[in-house]
């Protein structure tokens, strides 16, 4: 038997011929069994799993498609006025049989004599008379009136009703959606481009350059937004261009800050240093090495900015700084609708529902995008 130290001694004195070098002298790794998955494919796979985001994505697609083709669904254009058919309630072919959107309106507190007068209300248009009462010695009733036969337009269908000039609200709503979306997309794209380039330069070069550029953005951000917008609209008049411009004046600052922060995060990474030691020029470093790595937050921000832009546009239209009449946008429809909100609530309802669905969809879509582009940020706001 060997003692402990004897064994050590033995092992230590083993001749070299007992050993064989295991290390393979030729390194050669086999091919990988999986298929290569790039960044966007990976993100897409993750995005697909998120049901809510997928749903909102299809919702957005649906609304966009509607905004493109819906204005051709009926024979009205967004400018065509019907002075005889003002403020008509919604009337939709199939649904009217179910009692929804059947072109009726409830008139309250009418003299019974007037309702029953065939010169004023053709008998066919009075569907139901109820709530008989006497006020100050006058017989008063409420009545459900079929506005379409009352106005003698039984063959006319305004699906979402008509406005104070008798324009078809369905056509105007989707025309307006189209305008709002266009304004939002252009404004956001401009913001992202300006913000990315500005933030990239500021973040990449750092130091004094960064300091100066960031002070400029702070000065810009300090100017009251509404004043700037009003000055723009005074200068360029109302129109798509000046609204996009107005949304861009301060809109890019947030993107610039975000991109700058991303550049600070990535520019010291070893792969950027490695590229520098290979002599890669600054431009390539910025656009090839750093920017693709910060593309996740930028895309997410763009998607969050779109509903913001739609809302800003609506807000501007609402306070009277919108597109030139007769062009509609969601904001203009809302601002027209709210003037008659109590009499004709449907004029506000449809644009309001649409803008809400659009904003929620964009927000949920952006959330899903953020989660799939940067899984470590899951659940953050």
């Amino acid at each position, binding site marked *: 038997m060997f003692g402990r130290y004897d064994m050590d001694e033995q092992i230590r004195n083993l001749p070299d011929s007992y050993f064989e070098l295991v290390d393979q002298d030729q390194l050669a*790794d*086999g091919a990988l069994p999986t298929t290569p998955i790039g960044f966007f494919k990976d993100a897409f796979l993750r995005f697909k799993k998120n049901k809510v985001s997928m749903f909102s994505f299809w919702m957005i697609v649906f609304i966009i498609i509607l905004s493109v083709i819906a204005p051709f669904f009926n024979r009205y254009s967004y400018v065509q006025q019907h002075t005889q058919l003002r403020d008509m309630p919604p009337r939709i072919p199939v649904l009217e049989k179910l009692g929804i959107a059947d072109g009726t309106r409830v008139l309250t507190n009418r003299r019974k004599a007037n309702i029953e007068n065939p010169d004023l209300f053709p008998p066919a248009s009075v569907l139901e008379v109820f709530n008989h009462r006497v006020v100050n010695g006058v017989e008063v009733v409420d009545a459900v009136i079929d506005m379409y036969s009352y106005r003698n337009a039984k063959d006319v269908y305004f699906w979402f009703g008509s406005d104070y000039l008798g324009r078809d609200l369905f056509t105007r709503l989707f025309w307006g959606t189209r305008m709002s979306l266009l304004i939002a997309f252009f404004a956001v794209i401009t913001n992202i481009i300006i913000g990315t380039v500005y933030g990239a330069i500021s973040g990449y070069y750092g130091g004094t350059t960064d300091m100066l550029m960031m002070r400029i953005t702070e000065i810009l951000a300090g100017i009251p937004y509404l004043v700037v917008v009003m000055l723009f609209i005074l200068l360029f008049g109302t129109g798509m261009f000046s609204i996009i411009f107005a949304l861009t004046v301060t809109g890019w600052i947030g993107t610039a800050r975000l991109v700058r922060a991303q550049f600070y995060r990535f520019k010291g990474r070893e*792969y950027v240093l490695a*590229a520098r030691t290979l002599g890669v020029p600054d431009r390539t470093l910025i656009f*090839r090495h750093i920017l693709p790595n910060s593309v996740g937050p930028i895309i997410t921000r763009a998607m969050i900015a779109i509903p913001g832009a739609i809302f800003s546009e609506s807000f501007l239209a609402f306070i009277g700084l919108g597109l030139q009449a007769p062009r509609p946008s969601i904001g203009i429809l809302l601002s027209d609708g709210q003037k008659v909100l109590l009499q004709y609530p449907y004029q506000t309802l449809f644009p309001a529902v649409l803008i809400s669905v659009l904003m929620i969809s964009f927000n949920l879509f952006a959330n899903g995008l953020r989660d799939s582009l940067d899984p470590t940020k899951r659940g953050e706001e």
Partner: protein
Amino acid sequence: MPSSEYLLEVQGLRQYFASGRGKNRLVVKAVDDISFGVKPAETFGLVGESGCGKTTTGRTIIRLCDPTAGRVFFDGREVSGRMTNDLRKYLTDNIAMIFQDPIESLNPRMTIEEIVGEGLKVRGLKDKAEIRRRVVEMLVKVGLNEEHATRYPHEFSGGQRQRIGIARAVIVKPKMIIADEPVSALDVSIQAQVINLLNDLKEELGLTILFIAHDLSVVKYFSNRIGVMYYGRLVEVAKGDDLYKNPLHPYTRALLSAIPQPNPLTERTRQRVDYVPDRDHDYSTEQPTMVEVEPEHFVLCSPSELLEYRRRIAQNV
């Protein structure tokens, strides 16, 4: 003036980092007056504890940082002066760098082909097929295969990624490589693989390597000459064997005493030596300078320490 003996010569290099202004100003002397030379086709190991300035030295040589003072010569040409396009081209053509972290050092958004081929692209090679051919050739050389060219970095193991990093550095045919702790993030079995690969490439291509590491056994295995750094200063430079047999500076002795020994018998009796600068040196009256104690063996010491070191060498020999 640069000596013709060396391919890379560093003279009195200083790299200070300042932060804050006025009263809050804080200067960190990351590299403080170091001088050494690397001969053609040799491996020069730079060792020292974390934060002693090894990496900063490497980065300053390749101009990722601009040196505060001192001069660096490469092949007789000064590379520490004002940065011009011409100088950048000279520097990046001749010196390449391998980085420490195999995860961090490859761009996650680029394929291996793009990563390895980038150096060629920057040098004006436009032909896609030619880039592809040379990338694949290089990948095979570092033990990967053609199929890997279309992959993204996250699909590889640490050792494979480090080999990709080596491929990226070597494909531009540099004269010298600065290897900044190329194996410290890998486990031991993979370390041997990567080190052996570097060794093969070095012999095949006649590379000169500045090898930065904190693992003394790796450095010993790999380097012809070794420089030991402590707190931004180079304290001892010697041939590998000399340094291990005859460490003179107390910090080198402390560092060597920290190497675990594979033999359990001697490991059990291994004595750690502490290095306490205030106790081990008395620099109140004399300032230390770099002195060549023996041929090719430099130590940072004061005149009285020099006598002591000389005496010790005489006893040993």
